[in-house]
Each structure stands twice: as structure tokens, then as C-alpha cells.
């Protein structure tokens, strides 16, 4: 499975300032996701409308459609088509989050081996004041290697209103520090704040193939182990080193012979082959939600087959509509290919009432009465002839009444008519929405 790349890519600065080596700008991130969630009113149709025919109210009572738009995510969070929950209101409406807190703190976090996330907490006024002092009219993020000294590894010119940036650093297994600041008109760097350091994850096998073993008996707590070696334990000496130094690990559990270091090149190569991390196998999958993408892909493949089959039979023009509209794995629309569709079904409602303590059976099956002695049952009614005996026996068992209901359904179809209500708004999720 190919991984999707949606990270912001660096681009060349458009500022008037001459480009310096290592200076890049990165795409501005969007405004807070939660900042703008207002409903957009539906667009009014410009076409004049004919007055709607009068419909008896009874016909409008049933089968109201859902009010919300649908999609088809599949996950532990899935509740069917896109869930629009009741808004959670706190006991007291606390308003909205502040835009910023004005602490001037700079935060840097490695997001993956090649990208850093940098954000800064400046108020609108602080931003305005710094931008005014900057020769560029905006701030600059400096990325330092290891320590914030000397020439930076790179610089990124950021949007004047931005409070965060995803910065491409392109170096795995490296410690970085971010610095926020600006250039004064005389060219002097003015620092606003420094982040704590952050370490980009390594993305390859280590060249270091040295092997050291340690023995950590499960039955002894860390607190006890630390107590045994507290004299040698320090910031520079780890617990396993201290245990080894004190030869405590051998005392507790002597090293098995097979761990003493006889490991051939052939063994290493054979095992590496079994667990290689080549790009084809680099399928970062785990979360439940990813199966959605997998199923979607499977569906695309199978529907391509379906498209070809149907095209062969002349039922479907390949190319007119994408193959993904032929069928849906989600119980969704099958009608897209033809534009118009019709589903019709029939059910039967049998209802009645008797003494609340009577025993009632419908179709030979005992049913539950409501507290007032009434009952109501629906029956799916396919084509055919049916009988439905209904029987009520008094609580004392000394009286009974019976009804033998008879039904017949015969349907004549003209054109392609389905039988189940299939909500055409059930759609496959967008792959970008799947982790």
C-alpha cells in the first residue's frame, strides 16, 4: 500500500530579501480546525418553483430521512454514516479558547524523521509589534542543529499572522532546536524565544552491530535493583551497566551460554531476510481505521472487474462513470451509473388488542402485549400467498379467540426496480480521511 504524502513541502521564499543558503519557507497551516465550524446555509435555487401538490399529512408521517449528511467511515469510532452528535454544552458556556496566551513560548516537536512542528504563543499585539520591527515584515524560524549556537541549519520565513509552521529538516536521528525571531533593518538577528530540543526519529538500521546482553530478573522490582547498585548508578551509568559492573546480573541469573556472542554473518543475513523493512513491506498499518482504506482498495479492484464485465455485456459504458460507482461495499448507492433509480418494498402491519393478561400468538409464535393489551407487528411481505393465524387465550385458559388472516402479493416490475431502501448518501470515505 502506498503511503500518502500530504505533508507541506518547502518552497522558495517569495520575499524581496535575497535568498540565503538554507533559507526556505514552508506552507502555512490552516487556521484551527475548531475555529470555524459554522454551518454554511444552503444555496437558494434560482429556478422558479411550481407550487408543490398537496400531500395528505398521513403520507408524510413515515420514513423521514436523516437530517445530516452521510459518509461511510469504519472504525471503533464509527456509528454508521457520519455521526453528528448532540452538541456537548458545558454546565456553563465558557465561550471559546483564547487565540493565544502571550507567553512567547516556542514549541518544537519532531513529527517524523524529516519534519518538525514549531509553534509560538504570541498575542495578536505581540505579533504585530514584532512584524513591525522586522525588516521583512514577518518572523523567521531558525532551526539549529543540536545547540542554538552559530549559524543555523536552516531558516524559514513565516506568514505574518501564523503561529505555527511545519518545517522540513530532512535529517533523521538528529537533535534540533527551533528559535523564533526576526531581522532588524540593520540586518541584526533579534531572538524572541528558543524551544526545547527535539530529536528526529532514526529511519534506518543502525550501523552499530555491537551486542551486549543484560539480565533483568522479572521477580525483582526496579526499586530493589536500583537499591543494589545505587552507589554506581548515575546519570552516565544506566541501570543495566550498573548491574553488569556490580556483577549483580550474573549473580541473579547467570548469562546463558548461547548469548555470549557467537553469531555468524550467515545467521545475521538469514534473519535480516525474514524481517526486512523494504519499502514494499513498509505498510504502516495497525489502527483499526486503516482497514477501511484496505477495503476501499479491494473494492476498487473488484469494481474494476465488475466494470469490465458489465462493459462486455453492454450494460455499462466504461469511462462514462468511474468504476468505483458500480457497486459499493458499504451498502451504499448502486444507482449512480444510471442516474435514476427506484426501490419499492412492502410490509404488513398486524395490530390488535385484548385483555392485558391474555396469551397471544401470531403466526404460531407467542408475542408480548403492551401494558394496555395492545400489540402491533410488522411483517416483511415478499411476493406470494400467506396465511397468518392469530390466537388469543384468556389468562384463565377458559376462553379463546382466533383469526386466520390471508394475504397475497404479486408485483410486476417494469425496468430496474430494487427491493431495499439503499441510502444513496452512504459513500466510501476519502482516503485522506483514513489514517
Amino acid at each position, binding site marked *: 500500500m502506498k503511503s500518502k504524502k500530504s505533508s507541506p513541502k518547502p518552497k522558495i521564499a517569495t520575499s524581496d530579501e535575497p535568498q540565503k543558503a538554507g533559507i526556505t519557507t514552508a506552507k502555512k497551516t490552516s487556521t484551527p*480546525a475548531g475555529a470555524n465550524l459554522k454551518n454554511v446555509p444552503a444555496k437558494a435555487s434560482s429556478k422558479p418553483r411550481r407550487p408543490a401538490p398537496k400531500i395528505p399529512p398521513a403520507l408524510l408521517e413515515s420514513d423521514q430521512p436523516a437530517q445530516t449528511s452521510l459518509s461511510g467511515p469504519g472504525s471503533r469510532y464509527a456509528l454508521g454514516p457520519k455521526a453528528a452528535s448532540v452538541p*456537548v454544552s458545558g454546565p456553563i458556556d465558557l465561550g471559546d479558547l483564547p487565540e493565544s496566551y502571550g507567553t512567547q513560548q516556542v514549541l518544537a516537536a519532531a513529527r517524523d524523521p524529516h519534519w518538525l512542528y514549531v509553534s509560538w504563543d504570541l498575542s495578536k499585539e505581540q505579533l504585530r509589534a514584532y512584524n513591525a520591527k522586522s525588516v521583512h515584515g514577518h518572523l523567521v524560524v531558525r532551526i539549529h542543529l543540536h545547540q542554538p549556537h552559530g549559524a543555523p541549519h536552516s531558516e524559514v520565513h513565516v506568514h505574518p499572522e501564523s503561529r505555527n509552521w511545519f518545517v522540513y529538516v530532512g535529517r533523521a536521528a538528529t537533535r534540533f532546536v527551533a528559535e523564533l525571531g526576526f531581522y532588524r533593518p540593520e540586518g541584526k538577528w533579534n531572538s524572541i524565544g528558543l524551544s526545547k530540543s527535539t530529536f528526529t526519529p532514526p529511519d534506518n538500521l543502525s550501523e552499530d552491530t555491537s551486542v551486549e546482553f543484560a539480565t533483568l530478573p522479572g521477580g525483582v522490582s526496579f526499586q530493589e535493583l536500583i537499591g543494589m547498585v545505587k552507589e554506581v548508578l548515575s546519570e552516565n551509568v544506566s541501570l543495566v551497566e550498573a548491574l553488569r559492573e556490580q556483577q549483580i546480573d550474573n549473580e541473579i541469573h547467570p548469562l546463558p551460554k548461547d548469548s555470549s556472542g557467537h553469531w555468524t554473518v550467515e545467521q545475521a543475513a538469514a534473519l535480516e531476510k525474514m524481517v526486512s523493512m523494504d519499502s514494499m513491506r513498509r505498510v504502516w498499518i495497525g489502527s483499526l481505521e486503516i482497514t477501511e482504506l484496505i477495503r476501499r482498495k479491494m473494492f476498487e479492484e473488484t469494481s474494476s472487474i465488475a466494470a469490465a464485465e458489465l462493459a462486455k455485456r453492454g450494460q455499462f459504458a466504461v469511462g462514462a462513470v468511474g468504476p468505483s460507482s458500480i457497486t459499493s461495499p458499504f451498502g451504499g448507492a448502486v444507482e449512480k451509473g444510471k442516474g435514476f433509480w427506484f426501490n419499492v418494498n412492502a410490509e404488513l402491519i398486524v395490530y390488535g388488542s385484548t385483555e392485558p393478561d391474555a396469551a397471544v400468538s401470531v403466526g404460531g409464535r407467542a408475542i408480548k402485549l403492551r401494558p394496555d393489551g395492545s400489540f402491533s407487528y410488522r411483517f416483511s411481505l415478499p411476493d406470494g400467498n400467506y396465511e397468518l393465524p392469530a390466537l388469543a387465550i384468556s389468562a384463565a385458559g377458559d376462553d379463546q379467540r382466533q383469526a386466520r388472516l390471508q394475504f397475497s402479493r404479486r408485483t410486476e416490475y417494469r425496468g430496474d426496480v430494487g427491493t431495499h431502501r439503499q441510502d444513496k448518501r452512504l459513500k466510501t470515505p476519502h482516503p485522506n480521511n483514513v489514517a
Partner: protein
Amino acid sequence: MSGYLALVLHAHLPFVRHPEHERFLEENWLFEAITETYIPLIQVMDGWLREGMETRLTLTLTPTLCSMLLDPLLQERYASYLHGLIELAEKETHRTHWDDALRPLAEMYLQRFLLVRETYFAYGSNLVGAFRKFQEQGKLEIITCAATHALLPLLENHPESLRAQILVARDHYRSCFGCDPRGIWLPECAYVEGVEQVLQEANIRWFVTDTHGVLHARPRPRYGIFAPIFTPNGIAAFGRDLDSAKQVWSRHEGYPGDPRYRDFYRDIAFDLDYDYIKPYLPAPPQRSFTGIKYHRISGPAVEKEIYNPAEAQQTAADHAEHFLRSRVQQIDEAARIMDRPPVVLSPYDAELFGHWWYEGPQFIDYLIRKAYYDQQTFRLITPHEYLKMHPTQQVARPASSSWGEEGYWKVWLNETNEWIYRHLAIAQERMTQLARRFTVVDGLIERALKQAAREILLAQASDWPFILRTGTSPEYACKRVKDHLLRFIALHEQLTSTQVDERWLTQIEAIDNIFPDVNYRYWA
């Protein structure tokens, strides 16, 4: 025996509990998972126990999930949900009276739901207690997770928060299971250097990383993922086996996509008359899952086919056999190369089995039974048991990694959700200031500090940025983050500038009632 297989299931749901509403759609996450995953799993494990099988399984029960499973309000609501489900299934058996294809399925659902109810009440509505029983009998290792499933690498900048997430989880585990956790599921398998310091403090002995978390360790691990490594401070890191992951997840080989399995989406809620289905919808007028689904995934046919349970069950058995044979072959091959018995660790989201992949619990049942009765190559084991038998391991530093898209934190830190971290960074620092300032307190101030700790923890959950990224319920996720942060801000202000509003505090204590004994001093 040539080696070991450790099957690890991660059961987690975010804390969703809304006493302020009579019905709340997202509470169904829990109800569906109980019905389709947790109780079927308990039923399957009870079967193994009855037969006296020597089985081993490892299961994360996250603190948020345990809190919800033990919450009286949610227990009551679940019982009512189940009652509705049974009523609907019963109606369905009548409705499908003349439909020979659907009637057996309606009857199957009715029987299953009745059995679910029987199991639920047999355990006194206490599923945490049910799982605890299996642990006490030595068949299950229950592990913990970060308190609210926070993505720990994104707390690297604030070690006090990272520490609190682990120690609060440890304390909660003690209150649920009467002992200390030996292992932890790092949320989303996300590891960053520094996590192990807190794990050591909590006396947690092992965790799981994704494959590259171990493979990219420094120095290079000799045994790949076929043995754990010890971090320099002695915590074992087990790497996820990619082959077994692929067999379940791959689009070409993945089992859950088999057309004979039940379809997840085609629920009667979308097929049937609205008036009929309305009483059973969690949030009418919106149609959402009822749990009754009559169709199978099907192939390329235009119309979905009717589900055939017997055929699906046979498919689950075949897939279990395939999985088993693949592990036998893999472990045999690794054992021939290695100078010690290899261990294969296969972790999955628990909710995959049953909720999403309906036949998943049957698959697990077949797999464990076949592993126990039909082969001699490997033994089922838990990581703790493995470490007891093999306490000598290579020392290496695991690589930062997660099991999310592309292997790091992109899912939880991107343009859709980055705003969360800017607010969290400030709130977390303020929480530490509060914990350092209020060292000796009681009464109202202590209550406010504890509530502030709860609000921070709830805002840190990785579920919210995940949902914002995937777009499944973004409005809800956004609101949750904001509500918790705003409540924290108000508490901080009351504690530092004004005075604690007891009436308001009592209200939010009743809503966000997780971790009643939270120790706010962990943030100091």
C-alpha cells in the same frame, strides 16, 4: 517447542459519558464494543477455561475503558441499550416471518443478544471483574495504557505530563485489578526516548513498539523482532511482527475483507422504514447502526448477498488455520537460524474482532484452539511470562516510532489538529505550576486541583486529534478538546486569581468524573 507466540489485543475507547443528556450518540461506541467485542471475547475465554485449556492472551484495558465499564450510569444505559436491541431483534424475527433468507439471521441475532445479556448480568454488569478473573487464573495478562491514551511522544516537551499519564494509569490499574501492571501499551505504539524513565518509576517491565521501533534501535538488535531488547534502564521492548500484521490487515491477504464475512455497513437502520426503526436509533432522526446486519461483504456483484453464518464460520476457521500454519512456518524458520527460541508478538486493536470484523472472535477462538491442540512448534505466551523464562536480552535503545500512518506522529499532528498542542502546552505548564504551588491543601482547593488534573488528562487523549484527522466525528472531537481546556482555564483562574466556584465545580465533577482519586501532585 521451537518458540512462542504472544497475541496482544488492545482494547480502548475514549472517555465518553454525558449525564447531561438523556441519550448520547457517541456513548454507543462503548455499547457496540461491549456487545460485539468485549462480551464475545469473554464468552470465548470462558469456553477455554471450561475445557481446561492452557491458553495465554494479553489484553490492554485502558484506564478510560475500565472507568466506563465500571461506571454505574453507563452500565445502566448499556442495559437499556441491550434491552432495546433484544426487542428489535425479536420484532425482526416476526417481521421476517415470510422471508426465508432473513428469518434465520433475525433469529441468530436474537439468540446472540440474549446470550450477551446473560453473560453481562452473570458478571454483575462488571466486565472489568470478568477480565480480572481470567488474569487471576493465569490465562490472561492485562496491561495498562497511558491514563487517557495520550500520544506520549507529543508530551516529550513536558515530562511532568508524561509522568502523570503513566502514574495515574498505574494507580487506576491497581484500583481495578488489585496489583501492579507489568506491561503497558504505549498509545498507538508511540515510543520516544524518555518514556522508559517513567516506566521504571512505575515498575513497568515491558512495552510494545511497531516493528521499526525495535529494528531501528541503536545498536542494531541481533534477533530483529524475534526477541525483545532491553532499554538501558532495563525495560523490555517487544517489536510488532510484520508478517502476522499483514495477514490480518493486508488488502491482498487480509482476512476481514473476505466477501463471505458479514458486511459492517449494511445495517437495517438504513434499509427499513423510519418509523419502525426510530425507537432503536441512538440519535434519531439520524439513522445510525443498530447492530443488525443481514448482508455479507459480497464480491463485485451490484446487489449485496445475504449473509450465510455457517459459511462465514467456516471461513473464520480456514483463516485461523492459515494464520496458524504461517506462524508455525515462521517460528520454525527463525528457530533454525537463532540460538534461542524466537518469540513472535502479534498485536491488534481488540475492537477489530467483533465490532468491525464480525467473525473476529470466532477467528480468535479457532486460532487459540488450533494452537493448543493441533501443533507442537510454538507455545502461547504472554510477554511477562516470556521475560521470566528469558531474563537475558540484548541492550539497545529503541527508535522513536508509532504504528500510525508512515510510522510516526503525522496522524496526530497535522494541519487539522495542530491547534490542540498549542493550547495543551500552556495548560500543561500551568498544571505543573499549580501542583508546585499547592503542596498541602484539602477541601475545596484540593477538589479543584483534582478536577484540573482530570480536565488536562481528558484534553490530552489521542482520540481527539485522530478523529479530527479522519473526519469521523470532528465536531464532537473539537468540542471535547475545547470543553476540557476551557474547564481547565476556568479552574486555573479560580485557583490563582479569584475563588473556587463550588457549585460549578460540583457540576463538572459529576460530568468528568474519571479518576476519582487522581493525584495532582504527579504534575509537580
